[in-house]
């Protein structure tokens, strides 16, 4: 267990740029742009002589229930950075997985890692854990901090127009938002497993250019399947292959891709209770556990990772 912890820590040391700095910088740029927009809006507003006094009237008329729903709406604001950072996370995990078992073969530092008494299985699994658990947890922690900053920016904007922000903040649930986002991580790990498995398999197997094998080859193969399905008398759906095989292998690392790729899943989602905080309703995502698509993917992912471990052991090209 201790060894595994240090193996994951090693991944963090090596890929601080992707796991930590990429979401921080992306979130920071987003917040900066937002502040700029607010400033521009204020300049425009003063020039045009528009007043936002109507907000005050709203606040005066608001009862406890209104505050409650306002709090839920502001929980949504807390979630906004996590949407942006999800996209960043997808790219980080994609490129991390593609390089994870290839980069050290290219620079020959694999000879150093292999000179230590650590099994290839553990090494590969530590990289899988880094991609599927450490990366999303970092992304979520950073996104919630950014969310709070965003909330404060909105609060200060309102405060500038005479609305007390502290009362509003009391109706938000940052910790619950954090908890519900974190509870999403195991589901993400299961959903992204085939994708990470495929990319790591290519990373362990390719003698050169893992990106080409991992990304370009499936896309080109998909194009041929598409062409073939148009010309061939057999009736099979290229669309099905695209969404269930090709895009599943490449895009499942992007959180939220399950809504796009697994059509059954959306249909089976229970209706959300309108009075419930949107942030908490994320828990409904766990109906995904009932999807066959998910478990087929998990099985494929495990097989691909087993393959990656095997190639990690036998490839001796360094």
């Amino acid at each position: 267990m201790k060894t595994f912890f240090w193996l994951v820590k090693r991944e963090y040391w090596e890929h601080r740029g992707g796991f930590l700095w990429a979401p921080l910088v992306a979130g920071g740029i987003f917040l900066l742009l937002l502040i700029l927009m607010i400033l521009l809006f204020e300049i425009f507003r003063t020039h045009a002589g528009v007043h936002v006094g109507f907000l005050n009237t709203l606040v005066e008329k608001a009862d406890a229930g209104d505050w409650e729903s306002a709090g839920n709406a502001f929980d949504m604001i807390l979630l906004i950075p996590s949407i942006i950072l999800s996209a960043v996370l997808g790219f980080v995990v994609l490129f991390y997985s593609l390089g994870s078992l290839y980069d050290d073969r290219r620079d020959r530092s694999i000879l150093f890692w292999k000179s230590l008494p650590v099994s290839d299985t553990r090494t590969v699994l530590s990289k899988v854990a880094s991609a599927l658990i450490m990366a999303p947890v970092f992304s979520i922690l950073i996104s919630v901090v950014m969310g709070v900053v965003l909330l404060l920016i909105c609060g200060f904007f309102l405060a500038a127009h005479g609305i007390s922000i502290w009362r509003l903040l009391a109706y938000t649930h940052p910790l619950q938002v954090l908890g519900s986002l974190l509870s999403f991580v195991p589901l993400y790990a299961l959903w992204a497993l085939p994708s990470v498995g495929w990319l790591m398999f290519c990373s362990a197997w390719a003698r050169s250019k893992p990106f080409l094998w991992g990304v370009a080859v499936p896309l080109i193969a998909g194009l041929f399947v598409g062409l073939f399905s148009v010309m061939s008398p057999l009736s099979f759906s290229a669309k099905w292959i695209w969404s269930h095989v090709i895009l599943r292998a490449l895009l499942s690392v992007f959180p939220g891709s399950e809504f796009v790729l697994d059509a059954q899943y959306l249909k089976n989602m229970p209706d959300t209770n309108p009075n419930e905080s949107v942030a908490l309703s994320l828990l409904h995502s766990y109906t995904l556990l009932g999807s066959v698509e998910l478990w087929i993917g998990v099985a494929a992912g495990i097989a691909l990772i087993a393959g990656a471990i095997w190639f990690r052991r036998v490839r001796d090209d360094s």
Partner: protein
Amino acid sequence: MNAVVTASGLTKRYKQSVALDGVSFEIPSGRIVGLIGPNGAGKTTALKAILGLTDFQGQLNVLGLDPRTQRNQLMEQVCFIADVAVLPRWIRVSEAVDFVANVHPRFNRAKCEAFLARTKLQPSMRVKQMSKGMIVQLHLALVMAIDARLLILDEPTLGLDILYRKQFYQNLLEDYFDENKTIIVTTHQVEEIEHILTDLMFIRDGKIVLNTDMDAMGDRFTEVMVAADRAADARRLNPLDERQVFGKSIFLFDGADRATLESMGEVRRPSISDLFVATMKGTYA
């Protein structure tokens, strides 16, 4: 059992060539073995086989373990420096020490830090900022702090200046080597390891062509410096090699009678490099 490495019929074929051709040898404990051969002779393949980094045919036993199937146990007892620059470029000195300290059960952190204190390496330095010599110092510091029974060095001083090279082998002898440890080293800079070796193995085209300890080598091979007028006599004794220096001829003999040679001129033990050149004659022809 005293043997650290036992190989019999060790064979490794690549698609176009045979890297190891039925090699058999035994390396006892407490030796420093020089594995010397021309480029592409199979040295690195032999080391990779011992380290379980490559598949092979034949029998190979390292510290009682099979490197193909028991690699993880084996690596607790075996250390390995491939050549300079295999340490990952992103790692810091402190990270490297922390990592090895936490994954290697036989690592002595205090020893490693004491060794590092004698160098110019700082804990916050990254490998990519270091010179080749410093990288090898770091690697050596990590390896010397591991209480291993077998140390494998594959061209460990390639590309280092002479100060680092001398220091490398000096550290190895003074602070690391003892009768419980065994070192296998390959290098092209034969002169520099000549005085530290206890055993010598020449490898050529995947075969071991000479396997001897240094004392036996001195008994078997003799170099004699003969004046020009007696050179013809010496040639009749079928020397391995002949070369001219200052108008005299130097002959290298394998197993010739020492008294006869002494009567012809000044006799001495050949250097490994001269022996190597004589043995490998025609390798690239």
